[in-house]
């Protein structure tokens, strides 16, 4: 294992079949297959470490740029049973090209956009619940006798 970095939550190591020199992979220690299964906190942490590692790779390997890639699902190119974040240090002549050709079927695009818009606008992050203040336990109970006196006084 060519481990580079270890953490409480994740491990980073060099890929055995790299696309470029210094191709690293970040994995959570808790094995989960896709992003949607991870908690918000974990995924945030993973992205943060990817961010940090990308800057480290940038400094050490003399790269001109970095890519962070998450392939989520078999159709996207995921190969192993755990979710992985790829960090690729890039230089201009490394033979990789991630530029895509634009999708041409406009109807499909519009349909997808409409659907996504309707869904994503509903995303509301539950804010931290306001903590309920505990009722003070030492409330003085009205003296029974005093209460009776008051009630008697009110009588005409």
């Amino acid at each position, binding site marked *: 294992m*060519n*481990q*580079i*970095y270890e953490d409480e939550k994740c491990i980073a190591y*060099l890929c055995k*079949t*790299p*696309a470029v*020199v*210094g191709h690293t992979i970040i994995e959570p220690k808790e094995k989960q297959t896709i*992003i*949607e299964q*991870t908690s*918000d*906190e974990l*995924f*945030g*942490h993973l*992205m*943060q470490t990817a*961010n940090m590692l*990308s800057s480290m*790779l*940038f*400094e*050490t*390997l003399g*790269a*001109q*740029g970095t890519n*962070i*890639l998450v*392939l*989520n699902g*078999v*159709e*996207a*190119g*995921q190969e192993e049973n755990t979710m992985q974040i790829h960090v690729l240090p*890039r*230089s*201009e002549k490394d033979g990789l*090209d*991630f530029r*895509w*050709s*634009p*999708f041409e*079927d406009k109807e499909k*695009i519009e349909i*997808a*956009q409409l*659907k*996504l*818009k*309707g*869904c*994503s*606008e509903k*995303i509301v992050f539950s804010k931290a619940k306001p903590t309920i203040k505990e009722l003070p336990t030492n409330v003085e109970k009205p003296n029974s006798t005093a209460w009776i006196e008051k009630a008697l006084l009110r009588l005409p």
Partner: protein
Amino acid sequence: MNDAELQEKIKNMSPEELLEFQKQNCVFCQIVAGKIDSKKAYEDEKCIAIFDINPAQPGHILLLPKDHYMLSAQMPTELTKHMAKVIKHISHCALSTIKTPATSIFIANGPAAGQMSQHFMMHLIPTSSRVFNLPKHSATDLEKIAGPLRDYINKKLGLTVQPKQEPPLAPKAEPKKPVKEKGYLYFVDAQGDISRAKMVKGGKKQKQKKEKVLKVGIKREPGLLYYVDKNFEIKSAKMNRKGKKASRKKAAKKSKKQTKKKVAKKQVKKVTKKTISKKKKNKSKDTKVSLDDISRLFT
């Protein structure tokens, strides 16, 4: 304005002015401000999601931070965590509504990596067919890269500098010292350890086996008597030699030993000589033919 003039202007700017200049020229900052129309998918206090003009797949979304950052490394940690959270939820939406089998998240830092704009962004692409192909090369010397990288990262993060904090050790339980038993003689032996031997009553001389009790390893000095205390500690006292020097005695002992050895050697030599000579004599006896034997032959 000429390009040369522009470059000079940029050089003379302070970093704050540069940021503002970049903001003015950044397309995405204008989108965030609302000066350019766009199809928004999601909006938040910190970030905004819009649909890409040239989508790779239907439903291609760009997630932008509202402030201007060029690279992911410049962003504060809270923002990255927040954006990760948002993009996770959006990808969940894509999976559930468009019903694509997979999504991919793409971040590019620097023009060499394929960043087209000056504004940092995360791409979310719902994919039904592959968009990103990672070629596979066989790696030969991964350890060569991994070693220095690990060291560098650890140095930067200050991981190796701070050794792992060991949990505070409970006060060491002192090894229980053996107690002196009755009927044994405790003494300090030649190795400086404490050992014991059984004492015999009634003046019977018998060789007793020595047992080692404690390993201490004290270096013995000449002229001192070493003994074992009541509390099982080795103590020493000066010996009184009545004015005689220790060296003479020892020398005498040594010489005696040496002479003994010499004598022994001599004796061994003598014995061997004798035995050899006896054998020779025996042989000579055998070879001599007695007269009687000859007479027997003739008769």
